[in-house]
């Protein structure tokens, strides 16, 4: 079985979010991590590899330094890492990103493609399903469990209060939730091997069946007008009342705010 896992290097929001004066993210000033949903997707792929035997290829689009996230994935157990990087790909929104990744994946043989549900820096949850559309394969999103049954994949798709069990013939794309599993640690030996391994680097010329008009900033229908950090909530208002008065007070406030 051949599995392709799409991963993204994202800013580590634990240390706080930093912005450039123009309102865009100051990525250089922030530590980076592997996007948590993607890491769960990679772990799912590695478990399938442990269980059934598989070749796991990780792929990312980004700046040259994004090779770090590929090495991390390889130190966890991925077999190959592919970095898709080119100046013309910069500034891509989800449409241009999914076009790029699909164009790169067309070079590969695969039974299963796993992506994270969404990246913590964009939170769109669009790239995975879009890749499946471009490649014309089925997609099962929000996977909380992934199993293989012969030539099919059986996935539990999460909902708020229930889950659906879906079965799809491979090749298929699955988007993974961070809750899917507890990703393994890298191993020290894996790190040494990953640092000695060659990262495959592809540019625009390696993308198959993709129009230039669908790439990079020019190919992105979405333009970010402004980004900002979360506004901190105020301290609120504290009142001490007995239970009956409290109910009246809360109802009054809700009416005042036109909630009820």
């Amino acid at each position, binding site marked *: 079985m051949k599995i392709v896992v799409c991963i993204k290097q994202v800013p580590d929001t634990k240390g706080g979010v930093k912005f450039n004066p123009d309102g865009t993210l100051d990525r250089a000033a922030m530590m980076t991590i592997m996007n948590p949903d993607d890491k769960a997707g990679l772990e799912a792929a590695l478990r399938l590899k442990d269980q059934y035997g598989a070749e796991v290829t990780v792929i990312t689009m980004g700046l040259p330094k994004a090779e770090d996230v590929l090495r991390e994935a390889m130190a966890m157990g991925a077999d190959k890492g592919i970095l898709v990087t080119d100046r013309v790909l910069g500034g891509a929104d989800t449409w241009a990103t999914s076009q790029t990744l699909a164009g790169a994946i067309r070079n590969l043989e695969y039974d299963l493609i796993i992506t994270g549900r969404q990246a913590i820096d964009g939170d769109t949850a669009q790239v995975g399903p879009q890749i499946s559309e471009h490649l014309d394969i089925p997609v099962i999103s929000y996977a909380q469990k992934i199993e293989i049954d012969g030539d099919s994949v059986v996935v539990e798709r999460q909902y708020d209060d229930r889950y659906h069990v879906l079965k799809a013939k491979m090749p298929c794309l699955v988007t993974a939730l961070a809750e899917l599993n507890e990703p393994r640690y890298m191993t020290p030996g894996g790190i040494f091997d990953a*640092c000695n391994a060659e990262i495959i680097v592809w540019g625009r010329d390696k993308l198959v069946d993709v129009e230039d008009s669908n790439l990079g900033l020019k190919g992105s229908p979405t333009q970010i007008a402004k980004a900002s950090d979360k506004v901190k909530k105020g301290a609120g208002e504290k009142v001490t009342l007995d239970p009956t008065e409290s109910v009246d007070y809360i109802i009054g406030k809700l009416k005042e705010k036109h909630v009820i």
Partner: protein
Amino acid sequence: MDFTLSKKHEMARALFREFAEKEVKPLAQEVDETEEFPRVTVEKMAKAGFMGIPIPKEYGGQGCDILTYAICVEELSKVCGTTGVIVSAHTSLCCDPILTYGTEEQKQKYLPDLASGKKLGAFGLTEPGAGTDAQGQQTKAVLDGDEWVLNGSKIFITNGKEADVYVIFAITGMVEKRGKLSKEISAFIVEKGTPGFTFGTKEKKMGIRGSSTYELIFTDCRIPKANMLGQQGKGFGIAMHTLDGGRIGIAAQALGIGEGALERTIDYVKERKQFGRAIGAFQNTQFQLADMATKAQAAQYMVYKAACTKDQYTVDHKTSYNVEAAMAKLYAAEMAMEVTTKAVQLHGGYGYTREYDVERMMRDAKITEIYEGTSEVQRMVISAALLK
């Protein structure tokens, strides 16, 4: 001369730090309080490959170097000295002598399980009458047919009751050296469960309280002849060479304890207010921190230098690293004691309570000046090299 770590070492540090923060730090206080060996943590470390870092892949290890192993012990010890010494004793004192002196059969038999962490290793040299004076041993091994029969006891053994494989030293005869009779010491591999091999008392210690420190007792304990490690009569050299390497592990542990105490103190002095100001705003605090950080940095360079020198030995089997290891352990251990003591002082009354990590760290630091060669022994090793 380049003082920056390579990418792979930086990645390894990030791994060890993440593991230490997530898996080790939350348990450190409880491990100290209950004096219980952190078995679950050891299982997790085994899964993550931490129990065989410098062991070649052909023997089931990670195939990394001593520097990576030292960084692992350092990062673990920043949050828990107990966890640091478990890895150090296992790797330096059991895996390393088997790798260095074992026959191919012994390496194939023992290293894969040790390096994968399926089994834990220990080392038994010290006896009630043989501490710094390792020649003062009483434990004897007598050949009887195809078996060695061990009688005697070993004390203060790290990983004592938890280990599965032990490297044990015993007298196998008397030899004449320069007209004087002296003890001939040999090394053996002894497995837990061998009839006649039992455990004595568990030590109640000041620090590293989760570490399993036991007396090992051998009463007509019969082990196969094939379990002699190295040549007969070469045990003393094996023990000394093993301890040279072990000192890098303990130096890394001491380094981590000191750095951990410094990190806690930096956080504390920013928060703690007296006279309307954070205590970090007072020059006394600032100067103390500057001294602590400078010494910790110096210790780190010495530990990494010793580790890299041993790595060179692994390549050429010629480079000597005993002086570097002795200097690193001497300096790092004394740094750890000084830095943790200052850390407690800067924490004031809170630092003297078990609510704060620095109290435990100060107790943990003390042993690094004592085990695997006291600071006095390190000075003997260093000065002997200067005056030879």
